[in-house]
């Protein structure tokens, strides 16, 4: 890889780190603005002022905000996310399993939806404006328009209750056999795929159609290449950057936006964890989850940027 590309990539990564720091400030500030007092919520309404004061001092709540922020940040950097107020458990330990579950679900949803979206997009371009194109686009848009709780319950009713192919509750636990695990997440994966498919497919179609206007596509046609060869060999390589961009946005959604799906299928992932602790007003957990979601979102977008840089021959091979 050449020097200008390395420089651009380094710039993107540095920007991402800066952005993440800024987000951490926002998250911290946001939770500070919220009404209520951590000591109060731990000790309850009946606590004496003296007990409250002692707890505040022990927890460092009397320090100025920036000291508490730096303390919090320092903890995160060393892997200490603090303890949950509601349960008194270490957040990092309970998060690890949840995060892994969410990534597992997102990974399989991505494995199904991304290739499917790109293949459908290519087919839509191949038969553009014909029946196949309209069918693909129509079904894709319909599946995206339906909210995930609707498709989720629909699938539970037909596939889990009537046909009994897959379980309706996606319980997973440590040490569960891989096959069973896959079977347990089949329905949430399907719902997530239906949600993200159309966006990626439409974007693939649009990006490739845009490239198909180029003069070099005519060159390829006049070499005698078949329509599918033209799309895969000449159009697709030039459409990678916009496609990767939208793929990464959807991947981020798969990690960050699965809250509803996890709740429907009672899946023990990050989303459920977050919803539970928002209800309990457990601020440290909400902060930790927020930061992790932000980190996932930012890093996926950095990856999209880097792919766009690396896939550009003008940057990869300067004059």
């Amino acid at each position, binding site marked *: 890889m050449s020097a200008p590309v390395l420089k651009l990539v380094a710039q993107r990564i540095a920007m991402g780190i800066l952005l993440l720091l800024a987000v951490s400030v926002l998250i911290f500030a946001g939770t500070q603005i919220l009404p209520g007092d951590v000591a109060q919520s731990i000790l309850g309404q009946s606590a004496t002022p003296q007990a409250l004061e002692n707890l505040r001092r022990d927890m460092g709540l009397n320090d100025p905000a920036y000291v508490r922020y730096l303390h919090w940040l320092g903890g995160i950097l060393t892997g200490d996310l603090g303890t949950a107020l509601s349960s008194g458990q270490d957040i990092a330990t309970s998060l690890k399993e949840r995060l892994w579950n969410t990534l597992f679900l997102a990974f399989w949803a991505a494995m199904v939806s991304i290739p499917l979206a790109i293949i459908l997009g290519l087919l839509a371009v191949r038969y553009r404006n014909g029946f196949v194109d309209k069918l693909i686009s129509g079904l894709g848009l319909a599946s995206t328009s339906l909210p995930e709780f609707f498709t989720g319950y629909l699938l539970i009713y037909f596939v889990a209750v009537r046909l009994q192919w897959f379980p309706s509750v996606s319980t997973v636990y440590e040490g569960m056999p891989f096959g069973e695990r896959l079977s347990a997440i089949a329905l949430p994966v399907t719902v997530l795929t239906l949600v993200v498919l159309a966006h990626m497919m439409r974007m693939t179609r649009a990006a490739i159609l845009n490239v198909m206007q180029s003069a070099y596509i005519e060159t390829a046609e006049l070499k*005698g290449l078949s329509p599918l060869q033209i799309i895969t060999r000449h159009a697709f390589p030039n459409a990678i950057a916009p496609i990767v961009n939208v793929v990464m946005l959807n991947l981020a959604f798969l990690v960050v936006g699965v809250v509803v799906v996890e709740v429907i299928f009672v899946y023990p992932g990050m989303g459920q964890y977050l919803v539970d602790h928002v209800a309990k007003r457990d601020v440290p957990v909400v902060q930790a989850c927020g930061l992790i979601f932000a980190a996932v979102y930012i890093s996926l977008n950095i990856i999209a940027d880097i792919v766009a840089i690396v896939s550009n021959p003008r940057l990869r091979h300067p004059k």
Partner: protein
Amino acid sequence: MAKRPVDRSGLLLDIRNLRIEATSYPPGEPPRNVVIVDNVSVKVERGKVLGLIGESGAGKSTIGLSSMCYGRGGVRITGGEVVLNGRDILRGGPKLLRQIRGREVCYVAQSAAAAFNPARKLMDQVTEAALLHRICSKAEAEKRAIGLFKKLGLPNPEKFGERYPHQVSGGQLQRAMTAMALCSEPDLIVFDEPTTALDVTTQIDVLASIKDAIHATNVAALYITHDLAVVAQVADDIMVLRHGKQVEYGDTHQIIKEPRQQYTNQLVSVHHIPHAENNPADAPILSVKNITAAYGGGLVKVLKNVSVDIHLGQTLAVVGESGSGKSTLARAITGLLPPMEGAINFSGRTLSPRLANRTRDDLRELQMIYQMADVAMNPRQTIGTIIGRPLEFYFGMRGRERDARVAELLHKIEMGKGFADRYPAELSGGQKQRVCIARALAAKPKLIICDEVTSALDPLVADGILKLLLDLQKEENVAYLFITHDLATVKSIADAIAVMYRGEVVRYGPKSEVLAPPFDAYTDLLLSSVPEMELGWLEGAMKNRRMASAGN
């Protein structure tokens, strides 16, 4: 390897009574059918080159592409036969067409820069058709490609294929495209204006290498161009086309030397505008003194110590290849790119280097006309509004007074009053450029900078524009700074000439002196590279060159 049928008679391509139509969608009217090519018959024998010549809209590219049964942009072949290697390919179906394209017929596009895929290496693209049609193995195809790179005079032929299109120059890409067409050893190559987008000195290189390659491989060719002098160098026969119909068809010598049709005669004698050189008057209207200008905060110097004078009512032509700094000189004079050093005196005062600090009179007296007339006009304004805008802005004219002046200006550019209510999209290329001239004249300028104003136009239309500019100069006593790479234009209209090369003025003076020997090496190269309507000119010009063109 697919066996192809062989016609023993030596006839390769036989297009009979071709008719091509398209549907046009004029704004506000129902769609209507347009006949693009009407009853044209073309015969090409093996190893022969046929030149198709005509102005834009003559249907030459459409005929060329019909030999591959390809209709660009919804064009339909509605009649006739295209017999290639003894079979009618119009009735062959898509499978036969895919076998023919890239195997029996190959195509070389006008803009190789756009016709190469930016994401793939040149070697992959050059050998793609040969591998697709299983003409030879990959190693063999690459060997063949390297041989072609060498034959076409590309630098470092062994390594050339490893580069990406953006890493090589326009002239090199055009040659690489010719190598791509030759790589699958087709029977016929369609060259569609392969040198039109190139500089004049690069054009002669590419033209010579195309001609050599055609002779060495004995491939037949359809050579499409609007430049009769170019086609005279490569073609055995020439067909002159106009509005989709055949005007004249004969061997090259007959077309050039004894044209039978009046239209052919016009094409042959294009660029002969009589213009007597004016002697410089007392004080110059514009005096550029020792200007140095750069892009990127002084990093890339594009003008080095340039000094020129322009006199009232006269024309200074600035000539040179692309990248020589001609347009940058215009940008410096107009204030768009403030020079780092030097001064610009205009009409007895020193102009501020920055556009923002100039007075309204400075702006008014110095107008500009651009190469691309259609992008220099707001497509949503009528011609009347476009020409009326400077009248309002500089003179505060309104209502009937303004309309009267617009009508007067339209008359000056030889267009009727009726055009005032039309939109730019309804005009032809030449008419659009005329409107831009009227808009510049509306400000009553003392100097108009004309930046390649005829390069995008057909030769006959360009001639009309040049004649108009000369007439207007006599009437309005306006000076022109005429930027061009076309020396024929320069000979027609200039009083003085400045030859630019890599940001410097290498030769400057009255036209008669600049165009008289002895020449410096660069001026000699420029002058000798302009195609002349002579058989065998190309060989002579290549033999007598003293330096290589900047394209390499």
